[in-house]
């Protein structure tokens, strides 16, 4: 277990370095950072001074080292477009994205797992077909299209839900939350649904196929032969075994929710990191793009680590050293 955590941490560091290298490359070589920072009227000499001051004339390795050092200390540079430290921008935007992702993920899990279980246990029922149809539509309708339709129906026609933004937020110091106010909850419904729909579909289909697989195994057959109740077989045995592989993939999905938030945040004008990133792309705001990338990688690494540990907790085959070799 300790070895696993250490190895994962080492791997994570390698991953982070690799991503940082990409971020650095973007920062350094896509467009001229100096040209991005100064106005049109800055003279060539001033540019050269700035170049020197920014250390852009140092060896590339030195620059990269400095970049990594800055990132490690939470210094992501200054946004070209907004003229503020990227770290501050991210700190402002992070709560919005994380709350949206969290609610969307919760929705996807709470609805997706039971739907997957149901469709696996009752493959022929009408409700199963309804769920499967929903899931197909879920992966076939573009997210942005779903968002637009939701806005049209619930925002404009029915006027039930706000069409943009987070509603009233409460500032808790380091964190701003919309989950403590009614308008915050009303605001998060449609974006979270839009964002979670695709994940729900994936999770449901994953649970379904894994569960069907597990239901065909010998130990399930043997559990039935032992006369265990359906409840015990389906939930005590089949579901628990299903969840082992589901954990990994769901973990990855949760990571991707944060990235998929780009689209949802654009449609609903959700003031999160995705919106920031898309604006950054349009403005060629490289420091923001690079930082976003590094941050997403960090999320991935953390989630992966958590998933790995969870995986070991759930699956005794990984947790315990093989006492006796299989004959």
């Amino acid at each position, binding site marked *: 277990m300790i070895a696993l955590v250490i190895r994962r941490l080492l*791997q994570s560091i*390698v*991953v982070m370095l*690799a*991503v940082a290298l990409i971020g650095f490359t*973007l920062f350094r070589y*896509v*467009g001229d950072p100096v040209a991005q920072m100064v106005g049109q009227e800055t003279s060539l000499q001033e540019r050269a001074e700035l170049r020197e001051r920014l250390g852009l004339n140092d060896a590339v390795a030195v620059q990269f080292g400095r970049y990594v050092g800055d990132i490690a200390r939470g210094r992501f540079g200054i946004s070209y477009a907004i003229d503020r430290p990227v770290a501050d921008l991210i700190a402002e935007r992070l709560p919005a994205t994380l709350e949206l992702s969290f609610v969307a993920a919760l929705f996807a899990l709470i609805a997706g797992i039971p739907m997957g279980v149901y469709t696996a246990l009752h493959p022929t029922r009408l409700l199963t077909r309804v769920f499967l149809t929903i899931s*197909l*539509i879920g*992966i*076939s*309708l*573009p*997210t*942005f*299209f779903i968002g*637009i339709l939701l806005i*049209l129906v619930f925002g*404009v026609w029915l006027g039930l839900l706000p069409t943009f933004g987070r509603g009233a937020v409460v500032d808790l110091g380091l964190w701003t939350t919309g989950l403590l106010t009614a308008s915050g909850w009303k605001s998060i419904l449609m974006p979270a649904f839009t964002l979670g729909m695709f994940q729900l579909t994936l999770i449901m289909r994953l649970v379904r196929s894994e569960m*069907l*697989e597990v239901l*065909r195994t010998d130990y399930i057959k043997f559990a039935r032969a032992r006369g265990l109740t359906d409840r015990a077989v389906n939930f005590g045995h089949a579901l628990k075994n299903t969840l082992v592989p589901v954990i990994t993939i769901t973990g*990855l999905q949760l*990571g*991707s929710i944060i*990235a*998929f938030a*780009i*689209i949802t945040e*654009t449609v609903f004008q959700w003031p999160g990191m995705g919106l920031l*990133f*898309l604006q950054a*792309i*349009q403005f*060629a705001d490289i420091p923001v*793009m690079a930082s976003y*990338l590094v941050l*997403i*990688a960090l999320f*991935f690494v953390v989630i*992966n680590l958590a998933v790995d540990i969870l995986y070991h907790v759930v699956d005794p085959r990984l947790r315990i050293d093989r006492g006796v070799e299989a004959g």
Partner: protein
Amino acid sequence: MTAIARLRRTIARVRDHDLWHDFTASRITVAAAAVTLAIVLAALFAPWITPQNPFDPAELDLLDAFTPPVWAEGGDWRFVLGTDDQGRDLYSAMLHGARISLLVGFASVLLAAAIGVTLGLVAGYSGGAVDATIMRIADIQISFPAILIALLIDGVARGVLPRDRHDELALYVLVFAIGASGWVQFARTVRGSTLVEKNREYVQAARVIGVRPAAIVLRHVLPNAMGPVLVIATIGLAVAILTEATLSFLGVGVPPTQPSLGTLIDIGQDFLFSGEWWIVVFPGVLLAALILAVNLLGDWLRDAFNPKLRKGVAR
């Protein structure tokens, strides 16, 4: 055996094959195949079956813009499904747009498959450090959703490529961006199959004969790993089309002068509130139908290729 006789035998074999029976037994799959085929054919023959070339600006007349579908008030028989904001005949634009969407879809899936299958075979067959390296890269890559990678690649391409060539290269950039983000699925699956297949005794038999690793991988392992590849390719096609549409919606896809389905939706959504619904609805429906049909085919293929799902005692 004459060619016709051989053909006849092949047809007979196909008709007798389990897959064919599975296929014909599933009405919804047949319908999905029909829809897919119809859209693909229509897109393929678009230049010959549409009244207008929407990519040729000289054929557009701005005064025709915003014509509603023919059954609505103000409709015009020249534009059965209406026109968009530039006077493009929607029917023509949709088929030409589907052409682009499918082109991007197929090309990027081919690219992803080529990269992924190669790397998967190499990783699976060589094992060791090569395998570990490739798979670690895959692990990292898969944690970044395709859309994010595609956005980045597209963003970088915009920064690096000469501006005036950008529109010409947009398609290639898209294909590369979507293809480069989609290889992991292929690599993982093919690697998995390769790991299984390479320990199969028929592969060892070939090794005993002295067949070289490259030949073993290509002639023995690859054909047996193609089933899952086909499944992933099919589902990947749907994903690629969707990704292209999303990128175009986000404004980093193909230029509006050569709209794909996603671009058409992007254009059309500006007119959703103003009542010109047809500009967004028809391409949206076509896109959804295409993706739905392809997904249905993919689902069916996956089930059909999964031996664990296949029932029956006679083997």
